[in-house]
């Protein structure tokens, strides 16, 4: 059966994939503004490192602001590389859940596209593409490529000028508000609401724990509650 696509789903080439790619780029573009203050903070931390070039390389290699910042923070406070690596890995462990959740929609994609998707995987592109079963890979690529190109540039700007910018407290709320706003419409689905409520409550209970441990716990409890709610439907 052939499904009709809305005109806005088609790009100028007329291909649904190109249309979705452009839609992903358009969805991510305003979110870059929200990521900018966080990137400046990461950049300032890179500049303050004892080895700024190696720290800057983490922009591409670690490709996760929270893990990158946590790693540099441990090193700045005299921790060894193993302690820093353990903290960074713990914070980035959530990416396994994102990648596993994407797997069904990516089964028919060629291997090179799956590897490219993995390299660029982080919170915002995953959250944006999550609710799009149809054409999710193209939409995801649009969002992910946009962030993958912009993030290093913003961190580099932060490394050059970040220490001169006195961050205002309100900037701390930009990234969580953005991520929350991307996923909150999905709360209309009861299992999603159960999973997110469980994650939020776990965050309150573990608020004094380190970030990596708290997020792993929130993910585990959220997965269990989401599956239970799904089964109860």
């Amino acid at each position, binding site marked *: 059966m052939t499904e009709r696509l809305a005109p806005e789903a088609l790009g100028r080439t007329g291909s649904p994939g190109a249309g979705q790619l452009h839609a992903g780029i358009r969805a991510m573009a305003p979110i870059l503004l929200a990521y900018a203050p966080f990137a400046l903070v990461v950049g300032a931390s890179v500049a303050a490192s004892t080895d700024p070039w190696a720290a800057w390389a983490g922009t591409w290699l670690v*490709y996760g602001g929270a893990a990158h910042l946590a790693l540099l923070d441990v090193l700045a406070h005299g921790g060894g590389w193993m302690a820093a690596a353990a903290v960074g890995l713990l914070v980035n462990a959530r*990416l*396994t859940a994102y990648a*596993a*959740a*994407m797997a069904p929609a*990516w089964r028919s994609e060629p291997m090179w596209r799956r590897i490219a998707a993995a390299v660029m995987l982080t919170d915002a592109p995953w959250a944006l593409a999550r609710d799009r079963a149809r054409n999710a890979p193209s939409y995801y690529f649009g969002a992910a490529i946009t962030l993958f190109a912009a993030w290093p540039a913003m961190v580099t700007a932060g490394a050059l000028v970040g220490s001169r910018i006195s961050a205002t*407290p309100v900037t701390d709320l930009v990234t969580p508000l953005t991520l929350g706003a991307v996923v*909150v419409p999905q709360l209309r689905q009861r299992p999603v609401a159960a999973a997110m409520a469980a*994650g939020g409550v776990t965050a309150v209970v573990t608020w004094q724990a380190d970030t990596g441990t708290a997020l792993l716990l929130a993910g585990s409890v959220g997965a269990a509650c989401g599956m239970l709610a799904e089964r109860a439907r």
Partner: protein
Amino acid sequence: MNVLLAVLVVGLGSLLFRAVPLVGAHRLPVRLAEAAGFAGLAVIAAVTVRSVLHHQDGSIAGAPLVGALAVGVGLLLAFRGRSVPVAVGVGLASYLLVVAALTSLH
């Protein structure tokens, strides 16, 4: 050398976290992928809540409460169908308004 080693280990580990489920996508059970989706959303909820709980602002007392109010306003708008930039903008504006009101009271 410490920085380079830590960055390389986290970079390699993070790549494995990202790539293994996607490379082996054919073998991943659908139920596991579904549970992983819930886990991911729970993590994003936790990130948002933790950011509010750890929010600090030297100019006001009870900064986490004001942060919660602002984030709540933004998320409510997003839930009701407003775009992400509008929700974020209104959330941040609410925060600044409340801070201005509180500081003018003192």
